[in-house]
């Protein structure tokens, strides 16, 4: 039995590209087989996967733990929603405006935040996100306050759940490919050096604060993109998108999936949203289970699901290969 499991994982891990393309093809043909309720659930997973990967550029790759990603996510969502509601500009432009606005806000917020490290950095990001939340909440005339911004136009093409699923899938895949290219570029490698040892990185001639700011801005752009997608997906936006609870969701998604793995947040998002829907279907105490999950993660699975697979299961395969020789 053990051999079969090992054999299975050996194949899956070595054929990563094969499995990745299989997964993508599967995602594309999925609407043919399953009900729209599940399609809408998967849409949500995809959007949170993008948000998680965007946050992970900062957290997993640059070593900056942000407690305020939801603030930038909400900026993207509100920008797209308000433009759709109050102006007549083309839909595509509103989808581009969301990330750009989030990037601009990210540049301002980040400029302050990178001046501090570790827990002070985290606190600053949290504070800025709560400021953003308050603006959306209190500025009733413009954002609709806690009633949210609702009833904005949507292109006809995206009215059905399946077509909006395809739209989301396409944008998320494009964004993930862009992120993947970035983390594997000299820039991305420099970010990893900063995570590993900021002082040493400074002494190889890198302006660490500036690179941290760049990472913050790029992360904000993609968080904004996720927010814009969610606005279009749900047809409404609320101040709670910027709330720290939403930020916690994103952080847990990164931790659950594994923040030292590029696709970690994707796995994290799928498992997290699935569990949250499953558990809240049975009980009101989702938060209790969330707490238990976090405790378990921190104590026993520091590198998340992806880390667990590559650290605990991959060595078994390695062992197996060596004995074969």
């Amino acid at each position, binding site marked *: 039995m053990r051999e079969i499991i090992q054999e299975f994982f050996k194949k899956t891990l070595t054929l990563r590209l094969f499995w990745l393309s299989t997964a993508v093809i599967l995602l594309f043909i999925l609407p043919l087989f399953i009900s729209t309720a599940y399609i809408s659930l998967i849409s949500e997973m995809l959007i949170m996967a993008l948000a998680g990967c965007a946050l992970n550029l900062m957290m997993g790759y640059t070593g900056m733990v942000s407690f305020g990603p939801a603030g930038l996510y909400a900026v993207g969502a509100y920008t797209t929603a308000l433009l759709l509601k109050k102006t007549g500009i083309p839909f595509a432009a509103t989808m581009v405006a969301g990330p750009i606005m989030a990037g601009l806000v990210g540049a301002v917020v980040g400029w302050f935040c990178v001046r501090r490290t570790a827990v002070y950095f985290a606190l600053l990001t949290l504070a800025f996100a709560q400021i953003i939340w308050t603006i959306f909440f209190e500025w009733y005339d413009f954002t609709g306050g806690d009633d949210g911004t609702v009833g904005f136009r949507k292109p006809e093409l995206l009215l059905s759940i399946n077509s909006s699923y395809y739209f989301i899938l396409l944008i998320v895949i494009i964004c993930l490919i862009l992120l993947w290219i970035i983390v594997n570029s000299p820039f991305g*490698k420099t970010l990893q050096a900063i995570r590993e040892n900021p002082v040493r990185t400074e002494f190889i001639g890198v302006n660490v604060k500036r690179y941290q700011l760049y990472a913050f801005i790029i992360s904000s752009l993609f968080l904004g993109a996720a927010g814009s997608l969610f606005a279009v997906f749900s047809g409404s936006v609320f101040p709670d998108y910027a709330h720290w609870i939403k930020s916690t969701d994103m952080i847990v998604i990164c931790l659950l999936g594994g923040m030292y793995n590029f696709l970690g947040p994707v796995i994290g998002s799928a498992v997290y949203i699935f569990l949250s829907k499953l558990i809240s279907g049975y009980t009101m105490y989702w938060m209790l289970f969330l707490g238990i999950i976090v405790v378990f993660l921190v104590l026993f699975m520091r590198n998340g699901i992806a880390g667990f697979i590559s650290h605990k299961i991959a060595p078994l395969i390695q062992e197996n290969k060596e004995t074969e020789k």
Partner: protein
Amino acid sequence: MIEVEGLTKSFGGLTAIDNVYLKFKKRELSSIIGPNGAGKTTLFNLITGHLSPDQGKIIFNGRDITNLPPHEISRVGIGRSFQRQNIFPRLSTFENIQIALFSAKHINGKLFSQAKNMLRDETDEILESVGLTDKKLMQAGYLAYGDQKRLEIGIALAIEPQLLLLDEPTAGMSPRETIEITKLIKKLVKKRGLTLIFIEHDMDIVFGISEKVKVMHQGRIIFEGTPKQVKANAEVQKIYLGKDKK
């Protein structure tokens, strides 16, 4: 090459560096010795911009570099290694060097090209010169202590410095490793025509590599000379070498 003029730095009430004047010539191999707490590492931290001095100037190749941030000082051609090993532990040995090279070649801002095969030959050459070729795919944090020190020297060399500052390059090494590293440093520095300043405790290394020795005590330079002169000087014997005699 590099000149330090009237450098002073205090922490609280303690004067760690007290009005120090130093001059290092191009391609000279110098060492700074002195008991613990003499201010040697602080001096390095001041030169590399990690700390800023209360008073005094640092002139490198005729340019005032006092108060420049560390990343700019690296860029003018000063590389350093640290007392405690200072590498990028969760990246591979290869990547450790490669990332330093990205910085040296000003391409670490490139967002959309794939890093994997960039500067492969240059990276391999440095790995070869510090003797880590066969460990290049290992995660740097898992390297043996001596190899991490080698890697650190490699990182410092990758930024193509003119001046290399090494802070106790052989601290904590076995005698055999110490000899190997000493030979390596000497070879690399000569081959690349670098100016070397290093801090050391081990007198054998000091007298083995250096052409000039500066002795520090309580934040001051109390003696300068060739290794022979240092050995012969009574005051140095008293405050430093005397204590260290086996």
